[in-house]
């Protein structure tokens, strides 16, 4: 063994853990499922951390919080969280979550999934759940591509960015997600990046406590595919990019927050407004029409 090799091996020798060494988030994670599938320097893990911190901060009873994911790298989130967690089909996380949220109105349902899942194949469900103001929180992990399947272009891939199915660069106009969410009826809309951990945590806590449809877009590095293909550097370079190019502008007009390729990223809390939820509106309306005949849905209920 050469000297440098020896030195290297020595630095790698990790001291035996002390007896009571526990990860502070252990309770919230399915430790038996670790290690997770995400690449090192992928931003999804950071977002999971922010989600758990946000959930803790919200002080919601975690037994009454369910999480649903669709399919994708981001869609694996549900599988690692020690909550009632459901891993549905590609694009259908929101309707699945709608079933949970209406089936048990005491639940707060969070959907954590990717840009392709929520906005392309699931786009119709996104706008309709927002329109109805279903009580749920969406954490949309936007890594500008379809990562799980190998880096194809998606509905948020910026113009000119390269993707495996856009080998000469993307020539389709992308969605501006905060604008889409707001115009569809969301009562809370924010955008942060995987660098803005504290603000993202606060946003998640706030959104979880907000009755109705809340939407948080999180710009997330996909180092293995999107960043490599576009020669954007490694994880640290991406964090530096977010640091230098993210502009915090609370209350910004969502029409103006679209994202270009390697352009500035406007972040902040854009929308926070009051509107009755689907269930509030339904109960109040049916009561006004049916009077004593109306029996509110109390669920879970199998008729017994």
């Amino acid at each position, binding site marked *: 063994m050469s000297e440098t090799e020896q030195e290297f091996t020595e630095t790698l020798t990790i001291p035996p853990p002390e007896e009571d060494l526990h990860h502070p988030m252990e309770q919230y994670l399915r430790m038996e499922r670790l290690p997770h599938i995400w690449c090192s320097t992928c931003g999804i893990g950071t977002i999971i951390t922010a989600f758990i911190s946000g959930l803790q901060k919200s002080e919601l009873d975690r037994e009454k919080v369910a999480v649903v994911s669709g399919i994708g790298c981001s869609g694996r989130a549900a599988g690692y969280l020690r909550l*009632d967690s459901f891993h*549905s089909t590609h694009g259908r996380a929101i309707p699945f979550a709608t079933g949970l949220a209406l089936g048990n109105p005491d639940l707060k349902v969070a959907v954590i999934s990717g840009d392709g899942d929520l906005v392309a194949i699931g786009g119709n469900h996104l706008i309709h759940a927002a329109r109805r103001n279903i009580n749920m929180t969406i954490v949309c992990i936007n890594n500008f591509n379809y990562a799980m399947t190998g880096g194809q272009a998606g509905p948020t891939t910026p113009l000119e960015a390269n993707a495996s199915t856009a080998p000469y660069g993307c020539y389709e106009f992308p969605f501006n997600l905060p604008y889409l969410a707001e115009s569809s009826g969301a009562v809370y809309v924010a955008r942060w990046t995987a660098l803005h951990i504290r603000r993202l945590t606060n946003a998640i806590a706030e959104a979880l406590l907000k009755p109705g449809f809340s939407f948080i877009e999180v710009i997330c590095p996909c180092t293995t595919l999107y960043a490599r293909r576009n020669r954007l550097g490694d994880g640290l370079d991406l964090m530096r990019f977010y640091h230098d190019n993210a502009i915090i502008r609370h209350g910004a007009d969502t029409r103006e927050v679209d994202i270009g390729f390697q352009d500035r990223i406007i972040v902040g809390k854009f929308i926070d407004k009051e509107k009755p939820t689907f269930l509030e509106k339904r109960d109040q309306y049916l009561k006004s029409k049916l009077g004593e005949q109306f029996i509110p849905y109390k669920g879970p209920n199998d*008729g017994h």
Partner: protein
Amino acid sequence: MKADPIGVATGSYYIDGDHACAEGAIAAGCRFLAGYPITPSTEVAERVAERFPKVGGMFIQMEDELASMAAVVGASWTGTKSMTVTSGPGFSLMMENLGLGAMMETPCVVVNVQRGGPSTGLPTLTGQADMMQARWGSHGDYEIIALSPNSPQECFDLTITAFNLSEQWRVPVLFMMDECVGHMTEKVVIPEPDEIEVLPRKYYQGDKESYRPFKFNGAADLAPMIKAGDGYFIHITGLTHDERGYPIINAEAQGKNVSHLVDKIRNNVEKISIFEEDCIDDADVVVVSYGISSRVALKAVEDARAKGIKVGTLRLVTVWPFPEGRIQQLAGKVKSFVVPEINMGQIVLEVERAAKGKAKAILVPHAGGWVHDPDDILAAIEEGAA
């Protein structure tokens, strides 16, 4: 357990199959329906939309059938009996999350009031051409239960059976009506609540740590369920999984998971199957039919008997799982089976497969839009007896 009186509209009615199906669902304890309008099934959703607010149920009209089916699977995990209702084009869209329901072993009922296909086909006219789709429509290997009522009264009674079967076997149950039965108006008697047997969901009772949402033994003792929100922190996925519900991506796990999905039904066909037989004992020919075709066939059977042909009937009430064993037994005794169906030959293939060449299987096809001319069935009976 007896039905909750609040959902049982006891009395004698003159209603169509769609309305009777809605009443059956409410009587069975269904309190969640997510659906999307489509002829000729819409009346089921309409009646539920009117009735649910008065019985404490939750109706939602979704943006499409993909969403409807996904919502139904989600809602079922909250402990509420859940259903959706559609017809051919919507049934196609539901296949994705029907597979999810099968994989997640989630009780729920999917009503398909069949119309003529393919594609938009005959929106207002009858068909029975989704029978193979019911069995094989979603990708991958799984088993399903499907029932086929032949009268409005059965639309009421068997919808309750469908919910009970779905709870018992933790499987989506397909209620394969056809436009004729759905839109046919007849007397329907809704009994007293204490005359209606409903199967409540089997819930786990025990310590939270040792709970397993699945039990892969392919037998009748399936894992009991829990409700989301009860603090079990379950994980349920459409990926291949183990008994904890955790994804495992290898051939061994696939073997256990998929064999279970298939075996829990295949090993229990006798317990699940419901069929009706008449004049079978000395029959040379047996007419095998289901849904509206079973009623049209009766005329042909009468005419054949008047001509001295020994013909019996076997009506499939549950079409899936197919009662292969019974057909096999009969194949050794009879000359032929006659299968009238409003499609170009679907269930006849099962009959033929089960008969293993010991008896002929004669199809009486119909492309849809109307029921058979009984004379066409009679001609097939005569051919089968010759």
